[in-house]
């Protein structure tokens, strides 16, 4: 874990049992700490910390980036991204994990223009319309040679990774060719609830984009294949790994995780003839940011090789810009859909309420 963050030191938490981050103190303070008795040690300690904190805040600008939880976890992209950006920016990059993508969105709405965030990273195409509506975000000036199946022209949101939604199963499980074949089969699936999860909402839009008015009939036919509906991606994926269903709604890139991180080649993604709906994850700068230039710098960094090369094996998604060194080995084995489905964010948002009601009615029977 990354501790080189002097500003954080003034958040004293005495009850924690690990009150101060010792290793990141100046050597002089550290020596004194070792030499002195308990009480003076404590005083010097606090004085040193305050000093470190005040000098740090006088010199180093802080860039605050709100993101979703798994981005900042030890194995997520957060720690490596922070180290790489701080090498060049002369700043202190602070990630704030705020639940999942939807939680991130509601937090920004709650905070409004008074937010401390300079950047929000981790919204996706299903949340973009709502995010635009808030008017909280500022246009970016980033240009990049995107490696996306769709042309990207949005002036507010910068994409940093993307993936195709897909059902992931064991390789031995016979793969259905499309939703109809899945519905006709005895195969069991776990999906996420579109009312609480962005992948769940992605699946809903996928079916709607593929079948339009027939979507309700598809859901009714799928009802007996659906083992259960979970609140979020983690629960669904956990249930699948526990053997509760033949397949789970995830991404075509999920098998790459098992291949690279666990050397397990037994997972595969089902490729459907209808095509696959895409999730594009984006970041944007807040209009109210005090560090507008630094925020711009971060967005440019985000589409640079230093950031993009971290994404595949930490976030397990396709990078938005092809890394110089190409994709890691396991990603070569990822099966790619022949057809990409994508709805403009406003179009997807307009469909949503009716599609959720259709879904609910079909499955509640």
């Amino acid at each position, binding site marked *: *874990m990354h501790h080189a*963050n002097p500003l*954080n030191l003034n*958040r004293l*938490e005495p*009850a*924690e*049992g*690990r009150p101060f981050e010792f290793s990141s103190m100046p050597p002089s303070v550290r020596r004194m700490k070792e030499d002195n008795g308990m009480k003076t040690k404590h005083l010097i300690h606090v004085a040193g910390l305050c000093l470190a904190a005040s000098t740090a805040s006088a010199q180093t600008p802080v860039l605050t980036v709100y993101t979703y*939880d*798994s981005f900042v*976890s030890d*194995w*997520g992209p*957060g720690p490596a991204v922070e180290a790489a950006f701080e090498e060049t920016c002369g700043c202190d990059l*602070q*990630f*704030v*994990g*705020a*639940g*999942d993508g*939807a*939680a991130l*969105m*509601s*937090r920004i*709405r*709650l*905070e409004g223009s008074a937010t*401390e965030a300079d950047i929000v990273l981790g919204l996706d195409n299903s949340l973009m319309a709502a995010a635009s509506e808030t008017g909280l975000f500022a246009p970016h000036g980033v240009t990049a040679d995107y490696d996306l199946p769709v042309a990207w022209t949005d002036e507010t949101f910068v994409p940093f990774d993307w993936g195709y939604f897909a059902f992931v199963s064991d390789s031995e499980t016979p793969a259905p060719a499309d939703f109809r074949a899945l519905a006709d089969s005895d195969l069991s699936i776990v999906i996420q*609830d579109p*009312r*609480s999860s962005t992948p769940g*909402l992605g699946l809903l839009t996928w079916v709607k984009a593929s079948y339009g008015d027939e979507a309700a009939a598809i859901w009714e036919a799928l*009802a007996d294949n659906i*083992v*259960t*509906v*979970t*609140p979020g*991606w*983690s*629960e669904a*994926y*956990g*249930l699948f*790994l*526990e*053997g*509760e*269903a033949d397949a789970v709604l995830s991404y075509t890139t*999920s098998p790459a*995780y098992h291949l690279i*991180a666990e050397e397990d080649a037994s997972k595969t993604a089902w490729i459907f003839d209808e095509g696959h709906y895409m999730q594009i994850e984006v970041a944007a700068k807040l209009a109210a940011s005090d560090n507008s230039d630094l925020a711009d710098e971060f967005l440019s960094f985000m589409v640079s090789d230093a950031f993009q090369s971290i994404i595949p094996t*930490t976030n397990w998604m396709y990078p938005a810009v092809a890394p110089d060194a190409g994709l890691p080995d396991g990603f070569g084995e990822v099966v790619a859909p022949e057809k990409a489905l994508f709805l403009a964010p406003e179009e997807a948002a307009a469909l949503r309420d009716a599609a959720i*009601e259709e879904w*609910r009615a079909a*499955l*509640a029977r």
Partner: protein
Amino acid sequence: MARGSRPLIFPKWPSVAAAALVLFLVLGTLLAVLWRAEGSLSLAAADLAAIRFTISQAIVSAVLSVGLAIPVARALARRQFRGRALFVTLLGAPFILPVIVAIIGLLAVFGRGGLVNAVTDALGLPSLQIYGFQGVVLAHVFFNLPLATRFLLQGWLSIPSERFRLAESLNAPVFRVLEWPMLRAVVPGALLAVFLICLTSFAVALTLGGGPRATTVELAIYQAIRFDFDLGKAAVLSIVQLTLCAAAVLAATTLAIPEGFGAGLDRSTPRWDGQTRAARIRDGLVITLAALFLLVPLAMIVLRGLPGLTSLPPSVWEAAIRSIAVALCATALTLLLAFALATQQGRALTLIGNLPLATSSLVVGTGLFVIVYGFVSPTRIALGVTVLLNAVMSLPFVLRILLPEIERVETDFGRLADSLRLTGWRRLRWLYLPRLRRPVGFAAGLSAALSMGDLGVIALFATDRQETLPLAMYRLMGAYRMEAAASAALVLVALSLLLFWVFDRGGRVDADA
């Protein structure tokens, strides 16, 4: 009678202050959410269906949990066996498990690929289908049967042992003269607690419910806040939950009839009744079945967590230390609040003590966020807020344990204390604390363990550097690290149980001498 004189014995301000804090967190936050609301204040047909489902599953879960707890508590009350103390401690475990951990433990036993279906498949029997209404109820019974058992066990242990001897020597039916009156006093409260816990169920209902049929009010609140940002609707749904809570409290306090066993010599002796061969076998069977139902899923959680234990990242251990600190602070605060409230009496107190159970933690968190935002950065106070909310959320359980015991102490020794002019702090110190070691230990243990496992609102406030253990576990799951998450879950369960054991044991040291 001691009852009426208590307001004179204790000053009023501590209970008023404690009640004000609870009301602020429950209703103040709700008002804050309403204040920020932009959306409509109406309910759709889907919401009404969610309300119906929520109530029906909560009633069935409560009746089953408490109904099954009666024979288990009875068997535990009158049997002494090797490992009984350990079993009673482990009974605390299911209740404090993070929901997803418990679900995966249950599925390892009852799921499609679980132990039960392995047996039925081998025997050629039809397989057990867990997903649906039955799955929701099964999980709620798994969570709440142990809690109800502990509440009832407390009731059984509170019957003075001399009464059992007396009944025995008079050849009187123990059940009718002793156990039934005790159950009349304790069961409504236990039913109420389980009903309220199930009322706000979210992940259990959704994950095991099998789909949108099993939509609860809490899920509707989640959707309203997270996806629609319809705070008005979230507030209205939260009001529905609180109204249901108030109605349930009213029903339970009307049903409960206080027992009146009078004073014993205030020590326990072995039971003389129920020693027939048939009774022994029956009790043994009940305990074995309960142990299998509760402990096998726990064992599966332990087995899943062991392999990754040594390779857990340091941040998980840091989160564990943070969680312990949060749990200890929350426990101290909740005991303080409970004693402050317990110095006064009445239905209003019961309602205030139960309201936290029916609140949606998402609404409370959002409301608190709205209130503090603008004064202080939410991330700065994340751990403080977590302590506060965990303390208030475990208050109903602590009060449920302490109130009857305080009542009993007052009935038994109140007049003696009055004659000694023990008032205020001195009454607390010399009358209550020495008599209440066992329930205080149990209450503190439960509160500490609950605070360890509760994800609460930390997700809304925390940064990556302040994560608690449950949050760390969820973040691992979100990053595909299911094995590490399973190990983090094991650490969480072990630490929660350890805290629970230390307090519970501490309360019992010397108590049975």
